[in-house]
């Protein structure tokens, strides 16, 4: 069960440019793929208007995709940390046959919950039943896709994954535009949904082939979710933090109601666009973690068991430090460059993507916020890597609550303050996380030894 990390390390060993490129493209794809595709769709389908779709329909479509994305992220994100932890436990115990039935069980679980929640949400909307159905379908398709993404790192066959994404994206766009020409909103939505479903199906097929199983489905992950309740809280708070500023804007005087959806395109589009610039960080981070950092991390734990004196163990801890520092430097450099570039060319970008020129200041702040958020995201992943669950809870709680408070403040203060709520919240969470992580790594041997539970002698 080597998976992506193995593949990445393999590629990273080869000293060719093509190999390095492959590594990064692949990482980018599996870490950001569907999310980027969804956001790009938001722009392409809703803002670029070749077909005869009137403004109301276009806006509705925008709302539906945004809401489907938001809801699907939240509904999967709340429990997927705990679920992923359950999977990690199974892999550690080498119970690989548990993985696939757990996937099926989890899918069933999520889809049931999603159907109920989605139905309750779309019922009161003033849209045709068919449109509502398509929206619901998109919501479910995206939820499926996020769940399958969890398993993506077990696959080595990046050709298959690339194909799945490509087919899904291109197919979705083609279908959406093609169907939408005559059929309007609902069919466009369907086309897009179908594209996502194709991706999901192809990936699932590949997973089924890769992982064997004795049972078709089980729900043994449910007790694990209860056991890792801290992680569930982290998931809830993280996603709450992520969406709370947008929700506050939707319900503010600056928001509007379109076909029953509360939306604030002014704020949303700027934020979504800014968050696209997080891709370099997430990609680089994934590559660095799976290659360099992971090796030092694993080496440290091996050294602990290898009967070395304390000095030897501390020496390998220093290597972890160095690797972390290297990784963060790398990210600061590249992400900093990308963000700076984007901030500097905010005006051109606004023109390019047909955004409102009034959004330029907001876009700038949002880009800065995205930069800070990408750092925060990195720190959060590292915190979870070291299994500092309480720290993760503190970080995400800081994120959620400060985002709520600060965004409310900025809404009161008016347009020039927009975006600072988001920026402030990311910064808060980043500081909390960084300080805690720094302390934890400094005291790593304390956690490694003294925090070990004393289990009964069998």
């Amino acid at each position, binding site marked *: 069960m080597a998976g992506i990390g193995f593949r990445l390390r393999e590629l990273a060993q080869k000293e060719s440019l093509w190999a390095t490129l492959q590594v990064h493209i692949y990482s980018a794809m599996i870490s950001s793929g569907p999310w980027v595709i969804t956001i790009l769709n938001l722009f392409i389908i809703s803002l670029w208007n070749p077909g005869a779709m009137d403004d109301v329909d276009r806006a509705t479509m925008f709302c539906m995709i945004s809401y489907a994305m938001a809801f699907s992220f939240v509904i999967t994100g709340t429990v997927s940390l705990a679920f992923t932890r359950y999977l990690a436990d199974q892999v550690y115990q080498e119970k690989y046959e548990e993985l696939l039935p757990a996937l099926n069980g989890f899918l069933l679980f999520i889809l049931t919950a999603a159907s109920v929640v989605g139905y309750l949400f779309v019922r009161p909307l003033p849209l045709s039943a068919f449109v509502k159905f398509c929206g619901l379908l998109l919501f479910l398709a995206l939820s499926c896709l996020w769940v399958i993404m969890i398993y993506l790192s077990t696959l080595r066959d990046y050709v298959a994954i690339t194909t799945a994404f490509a087919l899904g994206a291109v197919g979705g766009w083609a279908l959406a535009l093609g169907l939408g020409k005559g059929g309007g909103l609902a069919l466009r939505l369907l086309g897009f949904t179908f594209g996502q479903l194709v991706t999901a199906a192809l990936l699932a097929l590949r997973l089924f082939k890769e992982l064997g199983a004795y049972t078709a489905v089980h729900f043994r992950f449910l007790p694990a979710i209860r056991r890792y309740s801290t992680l569930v809280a982290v998931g809830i708070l993280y996603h709450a933090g992520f969406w709370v500023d947008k929700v506050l804007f939707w319900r503010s005087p600056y928001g509007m109601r379109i076909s029953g959806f509360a939306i604030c395109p002014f704020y949303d589009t700027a934020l979504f666009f800014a968050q696209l610039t997080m891709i370099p960080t997430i990609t680089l981070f994934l590559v660095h973690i799976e290659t360099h950092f992971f090796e030092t991390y694993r080496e440290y734990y091996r050294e*602990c*068991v290898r*009967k*070395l*004196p*304390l*000095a*030897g*163990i501390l020496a390998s801890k220093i290597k972890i430090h160095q690797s972390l520092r290297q990784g963060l430097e790398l990210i600061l450099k590249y992400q900093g460059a990308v963000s700076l570039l984007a901030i500097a060319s905010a005006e051109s970008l606004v023109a390019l993507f047909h955004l409102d020129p009034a959004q330029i200041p907001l876009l700038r702040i949002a880009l800065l916020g995205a930069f800070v958020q990408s750092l925060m995201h990195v720190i959060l992943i590292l915190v979870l890597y070291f299994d500092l669950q309480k720290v993760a809870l503190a970080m995400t709680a800081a994120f959620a609550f400060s985002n709520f408070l600060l965004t409310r403040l900025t809404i009161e203060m008016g347009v020039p303050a927009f975006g600072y709520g988001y920026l402030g919240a990311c910064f808060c969470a980043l500081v909390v996380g960084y300080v805690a992580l720094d302390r934890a790594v400094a005291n790593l041997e*304390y956690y490694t*030894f*003294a*925090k070990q*539970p*004393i289990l*009964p*002698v069998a």
Partner: protein
Amino acid sequence: MSDVCLILEGTFPFVVGGVSAWVYDLIRGLPDLKFSVIHISPMPTTFRELKYEFPKNLVFFEETYLFDYQIEKRGSWSWRKRRAWKELARAYRDLLRGRMNAFPTLARWIHGGIDCPLNLHDFAHSEPTWKFILSQYHREKGHPSFIDYFWTWRLLHLPLIQLLRTPLPEASVYHAVSTGYAGFLASIARVRTQRPMLLTEHGIYTRERKMEIFQSSWIHSELPKSLAITTTRDFFRDWWIRTFSWMSRLTYTYADAILTLFERNRLLQIEEGAGASKTRVIPNGVVLSRLRNIPRPGGLHVPPRLLFFGRVVPIKDVKTFVKVIKELTVIWPNLEARIAGPTDEDVPYYQECEQLVRSLQLGQNIRFLGRVEAETVYAWPDLLVLTSISEAQPLVILEANACGIPVVATDVGACRELLEGAAPADRALGPSGLITPVGDVAALARSIRTLMENPVLYKRMAFAGRQRVNRSYRQEVLLAEYQSLYENAMEAQPPWPA
């Protein structure tokens, strides 16, 4: 509330053996006293059979476990904890330097009451503990494996902390039947309740543990794996032995009377740090009235009948006995041998013994009887044979001699004293058996032959045996001595208010 609280480790009522039988006879033999028993085990197991029925005057029985940790959620590190910690660290360092009078401080700061500032979580997981372990680690010369150091520290100290937190039954006298963990718990009782504490040692705990530690494979060895004999001390084995040694000395310090079964042991105790004036020998005893009347044959049997009476465990070295039988079958092909003793304590070893009997084709000669009542076997044999690698003062030698059965035994523990006599007056009675080196199959066979082929010698030894047991090893004497010890102890100070 009992008169005497016996503190035991790994014996009565779960293990059949010499010490357990001694405890059982002691409780039964002093029916006017109320006894309570605390039994120390490593871990709670699902179900353990009681091998002995509780006498009526055993009014309270409790088990306590060394490794069953209930680690509660921690409280905040308040100033009370900090102060307690500082006092403890100082007491600990004093104790390491051998100043045993720092022990009451330890017992005062760590206890099981609700108001104790430090709990097990603090000792297992907290930062001050971690820093303390680090400081101790850095004091060690040479740099031992840290992971082993850390876990050895936990393995050595947490059981002691666990015992410090164990609630003690109320009693007028506390009586430990070994040093080690039982002695530690008894010392705690002495310091907390101010009631007198007695110690009786059958074997010397520290020495027995030393043997086990040297044979164990799970203790990490810092020595390079070479065949050369070195004088470099092996860090972790040393640490284990030092700890047990310290626990012994602690018990010796706080015991009001230190008893053992034979003189050689008493000298060993003094060597291990016991104050000579506190030591005394009270030997094992048997009930003559029961044994004297067991019908014995007039002469020797042909072929001979040899009895092995002991648990089928490696320390009794049953395999050597089997080999001795093999050698003797050359002379007496129809030799009969019986191995009486529980076979369920070490089942793999028992199976190996059976396998040995089969492969040496002694199936017709040797029978395993399992656990038997003492009186039932002594009518049958000509000789009792003891091949143990380690012993204290085997009751079976006394019982056999009391019945008029000579004994061939290995030179371990008190065997020589029992068969050849201790004091000059005792020696004047003459030997009641033959002593051989440990594991020496040829010598054992020779001795058995000597006795079986020499009826006059046999008769003389049988007679000497009866006389010796009658003079020095009667259970009535043992019980009377302990009765007076207990009564003196109970009157020593006014009882603590309930």
